[in-house]
């Protein structure tokens, strides 16, 4: 009985059905929460780029985002604009580029005169946890805040770049990939922005 074909097939079907239902249930139960988390993470990241306080409950963060930041387009590039009383304080330009293993995406914040970086943030990447993955850590990202950029010159690590930014120990390839993405972004996108 236990080893008959019918029993085997029926058993397999029942087990598959039960577990698929269980997972579908868990998935639909958590889905809104996961999506909410994703939205919140994206918005928090943009607030970080503009150096706006990201603390507080989800509702507070989302409200602060809506109050200060708007989705806009400049010279054909869609980006986020941070303004207070009608005066632009900074732009957050999205980027995506090749990392060591997969694409790295994020936002780079620049001042309206395009001469200073207000912040850098990564929203998705697939670098090795604990190595290249450390680009997500404040210690790395904070280095970029307030960095002066002039047209034509490139960002570089260590002495070459005036000692302002350092690569991540043990993750040279990821660090270089990030720099390459940023330099391309500055060169090809940000320099094209026609600021009023």
């Amino acid at each position, binding site marked *: 009985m236990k080893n008959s074909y019918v029993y085997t097939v029926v058993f397999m079907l029942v087990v598959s059905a039960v577990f698929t239902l269980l997972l579908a249930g868990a998935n639909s139960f*958590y889905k809104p929460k996961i999506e909410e988390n994703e939205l919140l993470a994206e918005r928090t990241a943009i607030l970080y780029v503009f150096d706006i306080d990201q603390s507080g409950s989800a509702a507070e963060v989302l409200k602060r985002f809506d109050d200060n930041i708007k989705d806009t387009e400049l010279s054909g590039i869609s980006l986020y604009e941070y303004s207070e009383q009608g005066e632009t304080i900074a732009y957050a330009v999205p980027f995506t580029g090749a990392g060591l293993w997969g694409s790295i995406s994020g936002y780079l914040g620049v001042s309206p005169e395009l001469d200073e970086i207000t912040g850098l943030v990564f929203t998705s990447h697939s670098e090795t946890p604990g190595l290249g993955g450390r680009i997500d850590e404040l210690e790395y990202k904070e280095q970029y805040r307030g960095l002066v950029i002039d047209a034509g010159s490139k960002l570089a690590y260590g002495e070459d770049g005036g000692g302002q930014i350092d690569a991540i120990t043990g993750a040279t390839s990821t660090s270089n990939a990030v720099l390459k993405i940023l330099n391309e972004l500055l060169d090809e996108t940000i320099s094209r922005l026609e600021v009023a």
Partner: protein
Amino acid sequence: MAETIKEVISRNVWKENQGLRQILGICSSLAVTNLMTNSMVMGLGLTFVTAFSSLTISLLRNAIPHRIRMIVQTLIIASYVILVDIFLQANFTDISKALGPYVGLIITNCIIMGRAEAFAQKNTPVLSMLDGLFAGVGYTIVLLIIAFFRELLGFGTLFGFDVNFIGFETWTIMVMAPAAFFLIGTLIWITSNIFAPGKSKK
């Protein structure tokens, strides 16, 4: 003869520790042992999956047709891993992002299948669950020991807190792969001397 609960605990955590004595399940988790927080989450995830899949397999042990045993076990294990993954995504977004594919790799961790085959198939549900639970705990302890040395020497931090009070130069090599191999080799060396003094295995 069935083991007592106490025997199950001491066997899994100490005498036959899966990671060090049985050399199982090294694969998926060693990669995250350069940070203690990630190791802890991986260890807990694995413990949860091992405990519940052992429980489920033990409950179904008289109903599972022998010839599709493996595929049913894989299905059960994969389902629990997906639950862990969804749970992490919903509640611990940052950690879930940092661990990436390593959560999914818990499926192929040999410990879970090993406990299912060696224990859960022949024992009562509660005992099987405890067996899985403590196999996971024993393994988590090993991960944490390795992570302790790697994070302390490699970054000068523990669970992300700076403990580098004397300001020593951190060892980059500890962050990278080779250190994990050296550490686990050394741990195996130490434990096999404790358990089989004078007697060499293989």
